[in-house]
């Protein structure tokens, strides 16, 4: 893949100069070689800081929520996965389509800074592709105003639900033991919620006091309810960007639950891909078919 | 005519009805016996049971009677009935299933139809394509109608419409292996 940074900078510069957008969200090179954190700029002269390298893995779209009432227009860079998150936010009416200028970047896979660190690598080429990128189905943005670079072919290989099936094969007690081992690690830091494009409510149900869903104390029961609730709130809406799992400091395989829900929705209510088409009908739990499977007679 | 004692007939025939429905993928309970199939069937006049009565027999589970009927062999698979059926009951598919079941059970009423089918398929298995001449000769011998259509041969040959030697495809092993594998399978009804 040729480096699109030049084109990105030029476009960003033009957009800021002619006032088409009020700010730009992209990535810049961090202090360390394996970091490319988000960059927020409002002035044309800052655009030279923009990069799109192996570590531009963060989705930037949830930052749009911070400005949802500002009335300002943002230029934002999106990869394929990010773009589905953007569709999610647009479908949930959290921002207006006119308030974003979407610059699409086809992406052949990014790398995870944490993996870079843990692998002891000293340069990017030694770092394997991020796990979530290996399963990518949408390397090309599904929504954009302009696209930079050539379309990339999806490289998803193998069964996207392989991990789910592995868990399904366990006995009930094995499953519970597995999830207990995972969820007991949870710190309830809420990073997974905060990064999730489907978690775009103004006030989160977990933050409401009447009634309080979760106890303040951190215990397994409440951790489980937290994860189940969050997954259920995202049911039929999760865009599989994998950000939740990526940001989890405890390495909880959060996507294994989200993917289970996707798999079941496909089986029960017909194939459905969230966040792919902007003008589609309500998500699966916001609608029904009289012919839905009947198990409750 | 004998009175059919329904409760025992229905009990005995339940499995048959279910099997036929599963194999043919035809829901016979959809049929409300309007008879449109029979009315439009060009071969019905020659049948012992009208087509809608064939469905009726399956609905009731009258296995022996339907599988030994001539009607199932006299269906020309012309698809008139399914084209017009108000309930989308695929009668040609049902007839296929019943014929196969009759084969298995050995209750084929129209021996010649079955004989012809057999000889035809043997010819295809041997040559990859049927050879009319040899097939017809064997058919006439086996069906005991030695002189049937015998005058046609020369006429057809004169017009270049029949040859003495069978046309055989070169890679006939492929077709033979197809027959072999099909025999090894269970008939594919469940697919």
């Amino acid at each position, binding site marked *: 893949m040729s480096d699109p940074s030049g084109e990105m900078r030029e476009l960003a510069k033009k957009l800021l100069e002619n006032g088409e957008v009020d700010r730009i969200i992209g990535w810049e090179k961090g202090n360390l070689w394996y970091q490319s954190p988000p960059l927020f700029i409002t002035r044309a002269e800052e655009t030279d800081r923009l990069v799109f390298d192996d570590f531009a893995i963060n989705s930037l779209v949830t930052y749009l929520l911070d400005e949802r009432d500002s009335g300002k227009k943002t230029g934002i860079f999106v990869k394929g996965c990010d773009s589905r998150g953007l569709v999610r936010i647009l479908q949930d009416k959290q921002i207006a389509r006119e308030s974003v200028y979407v610059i699409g970047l086809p992406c052949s896979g990014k790398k995870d800074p944490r993996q870079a660190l843990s692998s002891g690598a000293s340069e990017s080429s030694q770092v394997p592709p991020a796990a979530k990128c290996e399963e990518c189905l949408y390397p090309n943005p599904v929504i954009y105003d302009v696209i930079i670079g050539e379309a990339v072919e999806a490289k998803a290989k193998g069964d996207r639900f392989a991990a789910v099936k592995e868990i399904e094969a366990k006995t009930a007690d094995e499953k519970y033991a597995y999830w207990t081992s995972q969820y007991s690690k949870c710190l309830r830091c809420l990073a997974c919620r905060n990064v999730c494009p489907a978690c775009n409510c103004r006030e989160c149900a977990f933050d409401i006091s009447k009634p309080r869903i979760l106890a303040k104390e951190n215990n397994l029961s409440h951790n489980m309810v937290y994860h189940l609730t969050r997954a259920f709130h995202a049911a039929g809406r999760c865009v599989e960007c994998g950000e939740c799992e990526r940001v989890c400091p405890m390495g909880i395989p959060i996507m294994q639950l989200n993917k289970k829900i996707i798999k079941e929705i496909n089986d029960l209510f017909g194939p459905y891909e969230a966040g792919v088409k902007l003008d589609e009908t309500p998500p699966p739990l916001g609608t029904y078919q009289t012919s839905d499977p009947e198990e409750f007679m | 005519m004998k009175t059919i004692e329904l409760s025992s007939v229905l009990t005995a025939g339940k499995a048959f009805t279910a099997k036929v429905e599963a194999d043919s993928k035809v829901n016979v309970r959809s049929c409300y016996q309007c008879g449109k199939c029979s009315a439009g069937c*060009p*071969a019905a006049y*020659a049948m012992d049971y009208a087509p809608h009565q064939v469905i009726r027999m399956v609905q009731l589970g009258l296995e022996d009677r339907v599988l030994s009927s001539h009607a199932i062999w*006299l269906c*020309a*698979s*012309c*698809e*008139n009935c*399914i*084209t017009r059926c108000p309930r989308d009951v*695929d009668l*040609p598919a049902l007839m*296929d299933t019943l*014929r*196969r079941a009759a084969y298995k059970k050995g209750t084929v009423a*129209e021996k*010649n*139809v*079955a*004989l*012809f*089918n*057999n000889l*035809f*398929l043997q010819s*295809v298995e041997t040559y*990859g*394509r*049927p050879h*009319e001449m040899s097939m*017809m000769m064997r*058919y006439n011998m086996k*069906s005991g109608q030695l002189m*049937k*259509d015998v005058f*046609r041969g020369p*006429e*057809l040959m004169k*017009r*270049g*419409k*029949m*040859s003495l030697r069978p*046309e055989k*495809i*070169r*890679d006939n092993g*492929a*077709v033979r*292996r*197809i*027959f072999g*594998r*099909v025999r090894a*399978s269970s*008939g*594919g*009804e469940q*697919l």
Partner: protein
Amino acid sequence: MKYAYYPGCSLDSTGIEYQLSTKAVAGTLGVELWEIPEWNCCGASAAHNTDRLLSLALPARNLALAEKEGLDVAVPCAACYSRMKATEKAVRGSEDVREKISEIIEMEYGASNRTLALLDVFTNQAGLEQVASLATKPLQGLKTACYYGCLMVKPPRLAEFDDPEDPQTMDRLMDALGAEAVSWPYKTECCGAGFASSRTDIVLQMSYEVLRLAKTAGAEAVVTACPLCMLNLDMRQKEIEAKNGVAIDLPILYFTELMALAFGHKPAAIGFNKHFVDTTPVVRKVEQGRRAKEVQP
């Protein structure tokens, strides 16, 4: 335009006229027919009467050979066409069927190519305007009864290209060739082909009905697209006449023969002399009509 060509068993024997005229028409229309090498019999009704798997596997081998070439398949015989469409649909409709069939025929077959009736290819696919423009020797209002038979258009979920009760493809073709298609009610009724050998009595009755109604409608010839119909209506016509004590005298012709005739091919070269019922009245009517016209202006 290039198609894989599956002549079927009849076209080398009883349907020789169909073969000759098809090749002549293809030549004039510029349609390239690539005969599937070492094709095998589709199994006809004998196969589907006997074994479902066999009835799918036999056609599948031919279709797979064409699929390898990336070609759609043109099928002249209505019966073969029906079996091939049934196979195509079954394979397309079920992954299990696809796998099983591919295994049996030792070839991958995914039904990515289409099966087309030769009638469809020479009319709808080639374009009737082109056909009309090539009909340099129009058929002078020859009154034809277009006989589609049963399997060319029925059942509609398989046949797909024309109406099952009152099809028009051949009628429009006759119009393009300068002939007249009479309106008659037995266009899609069955001639009884399946019983040609086993229950000839039924065939004679069914074919008689077809001939009687064509005659009553004022037809001077019956046009067909099926070699089995041809055999019954043509070869057995004398027997039918004798059995019912009537004179019918209806020449039976393949649509391709009339196309070739109108395209200017010599009648003998396209099989007019190979019929049981004398076809010279047709040729004569066309020639006389043409001469009369040439004199008149």
